[in-house]
């Protein structure tokens, strides 16, 4: 048994411990859980110390004391390193109730600094850039998704008409003949809409893609209005917004499934191939 095999076996057994949680909570899972909490907490303590405190505080400050050459701290004087060191130590005042309030000073800088970063860059990346991307012509350019968009629209018209003709009017009472008529009617209307829109968008008269993008965006924004009642025009827009949101969420969900399964495949491959060498 090689050292690597022992380590791999440790990993494999821990993997099985975690999977046992799928059945129910049990001592094996508890073991793995507590172990990983301890190990990872220790890991981060060590890594953050060596990546930030050691190079940015300890080495610049103490090498000087030892008569060594001062280590440049971001290209500045060594004593600059005292500032984060001091701020860091202030965090620990919370262990001394009398002066615990001083611990809010570094927190103030920390919270405030990141709050400030949450203003200007956010305005650019999340607001203005998105507005710019959203502002595209509704016509005049051939629509890359003309066929798909219009098929979707034609289908939507068909579904809506059928819904109103059939569901709203109690099929059983009105008889089958009428429902068939209704379906045919809505199919014609849906297909008609599809054909007309396809023709228009293929010639660049309308771009259904861009229209939907703008309508969907305005609808979603309307949904986020807080200070007005969602009624009338705003209510209608917000309703459209919800529809877009739901389609978007469905898409994101379906889109993510694959990655998640990949992870499981990865673990199974670890167990069967790397550990047991079955494959």
């Amino acid at each position, binding site marked *: 048994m090689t050292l690597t095999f022992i380590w791999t076996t440790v990993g494999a057994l821990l993997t099985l411990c975690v999977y046992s949680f799928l059945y129910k909570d049990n001592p094996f899972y508890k073991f793995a859980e507590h172990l990983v909490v301890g190990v990872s907490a220790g890991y981060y303590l060590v890594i953050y110390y060596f990546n930030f405190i050691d190079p940015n505080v300890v080495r610049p400050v103490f090498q000087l004391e030892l008569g060594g050459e001062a280590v440049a701290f971001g290209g500045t004087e060594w004593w600059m390193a005292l500032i984060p060191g001091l701020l860091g130590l202030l965090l620990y005042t919370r262990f001394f109730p009398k002066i615990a309030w001083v611990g809010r000073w570094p927190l103030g800088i920390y919270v405030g600094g990141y709050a400030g970063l949450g203003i200007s860059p956010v305005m650019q990346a999340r607001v203005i850039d998105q507005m710019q991307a959203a502002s595209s012509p509704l016509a005049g350019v051939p629509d890359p998704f003309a066929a798909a968009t219009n098929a979707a629209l034609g289908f939507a018209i068909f579904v809506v008409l059928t819904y109103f003709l059939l569901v709203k009017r109690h099929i059983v009472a009105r008889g089958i003949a009428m429902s068939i008529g209704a379906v045919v009617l809505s199919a014609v209307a849906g297909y008609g809409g599809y054909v007309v829109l396809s023709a228009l968008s293929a010639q660049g008269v309308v771009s259904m893609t861009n229209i939907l993008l703008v309508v969907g965006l305005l609808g979603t924004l309307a949904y986020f209005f807080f200070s007005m009642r969602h009624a009338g025009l705003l209510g209608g827009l917000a309703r459209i917004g919800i529809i877009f949101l739901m389609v978007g969420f469905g898409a994101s969900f379906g889109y*993510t*499934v*694959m*990655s998640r*399964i*990949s992870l*499981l495949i*990865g673990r199974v491959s670890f167990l069967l191939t790397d550990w047991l060498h079955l494959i």
Partner: protein
Amino acid sequence: MASVTEFFEKFLRIDRRWIFLAIAIAVVVPFFLPLGLPVVVTPPVQRLYDAVEELELGGPPLLLSIDYTPATSPELEPMSTAILRHVFRQDARVIVMTLHPAGYGMAESAILAAAEEEGAEYGEDFCFLGFQPGTSAVILGLGVNISNVFPEDAYGTPLTEIPMMEGIRNYDDIPLLISLAGWSASEAWVYYAHQPYGQRVGGGVTAVMATDLYPYLDSGQLVGLLGGMRGAAEYEELIGQHGSGVRGMDSQSVIHLIIIILIILGNLAYFMTRRQRKLAGEGT
């Protein structure tokens, strides 16, 4: 009729552990019985493959940055394996590095496995520079001089003593760069290596991230892109050696089908029982 409804009602309240079991079976079985579903190669993968194909025998090397962490390695490791096999098979050379501290182990194991398999030699066909912190600064620094950023390789050998690094100074001497990452590293390479230095950059990312990177592909900022396990499977198809990517796609297809069937059955059961409840409600 009642029994059907009863069945559906039971089905709606099914213990989720049965679903877990179905998923587990669907993942494990293709390991032993490959379904061999066909893999269609898409243009972004083909373009990356072509770019690697252009590397010359003993010519300037590929820079492969293995930036993924253990969390995303199931999706990305098949990519690094396939690309490394491809590189070694055409006797091209590769420099491997990582921008993520946790990528160190990932990179090392991937490259050693591929090298052993294809008989590539350290220092001649490949070398491993290891990890340096500071993402964007590292990428920009490599554009000036690689040995400023990595004075020595991961094992402490000065770059000047590594035969294949002779004459390799910065991006000018590297025809292609590929970053495999489950975080924003690929974008960083585009911003800091392609933008200022004109370096050709290819990427491999998780399936979730792939659509976010399509714009870079369209604008030519990325020469090619592998998205998730599917991207890896397509690359394996191209190099003609099926590995964990293609095998994974079998499991993927089956599980996707299972989920969709579950959704359909769930809705069927929901409507059947709802109708039954409605009828019962009308009856009383």
